[in-house]
């Protein structure tokens, strides 16, 4: 398992994607899967950037490990306010657009694209793990 600690700000996004994507490419992940993973990394990471540390600086610790049957898992750990994104209300896709809010859309995409999403609160940390099957 490898890990990387980055500042919880948007400038770190590139480093977050570069931490994971070369490994998926090395496993011959399809172009579509790579796009899915990039999008999920951005949505999860920016969610932490915007909400975990209101008015304060913080860090995010990333881990990347391979699960059973060639599953690529990425863990995000922050010490911010407790937040389980899986409990966020679902986006209503049928709603008239003038009523639609943008909140929750990123999480909706994460749930749709990742093959598995797990959350746990451990001590002072939020730990979110997203996994993808590399077929």
């Amino acid at each position, binding site marked *: 398992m490898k890990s990387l600690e980055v500042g919880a700000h948007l400038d770190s996004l590139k480093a977050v994607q570069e931490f994971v994507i070369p490994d998926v490419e090395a496993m011959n992940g399809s172009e579509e899967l790579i796009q899915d993973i990039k999008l999920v990394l951005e949505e999860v990471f920016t969610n932490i950037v915007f909400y975990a540390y209101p008015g304060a600086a913080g860090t995010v610790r990333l881990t990347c490990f391979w699960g059973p049957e060639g599953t690529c898992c990425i863990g995000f750990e922050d010490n911010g306010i407790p937040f389980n994104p899986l409990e966020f209300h679902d*986006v209503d896709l049928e*709603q008239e657009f003038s009523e639609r809010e943008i909140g929750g*859309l990123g999480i909706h995409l994460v749930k749709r694209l990742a093959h598995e999403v797990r959350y746990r609160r451990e001590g002072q940390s939020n730990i979110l793990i997203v996994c993808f099957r590399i077929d």
Partner: protein
Amino acid sequence: MLITETREGNIVVLAVEGRLDSNTSDQFEKQLFSMVEQGEARFVLDFGGLDYISSAGLRVLLKAAKELKKKDGRLCLCSLRDYVREVFDMSGFAAFLPIHPSLETSIKSLS
């Protein structure tokens, strides 16, 4: 991200290339909304060169669509690559943002 602006009569065509993500969406929002504030009301967003869009980019499109609706304006998209199209479908945005196969059909629809 690179934005190229052209005109077809009273229609503004913005060709967006590269990535529309949390690092670039602010620039896109500023450029689009400065034209809306100047009174432009018909837009085609040519996404033929767009490689990637995230919810940050979708947020700007939703905001622009709402603003233009108030002003009786219109916004449509064209030439989406398969992957970008999929993000629109997954997020439900394809239901309210007209998406055309080509720039020509977009312009015809707004003319």
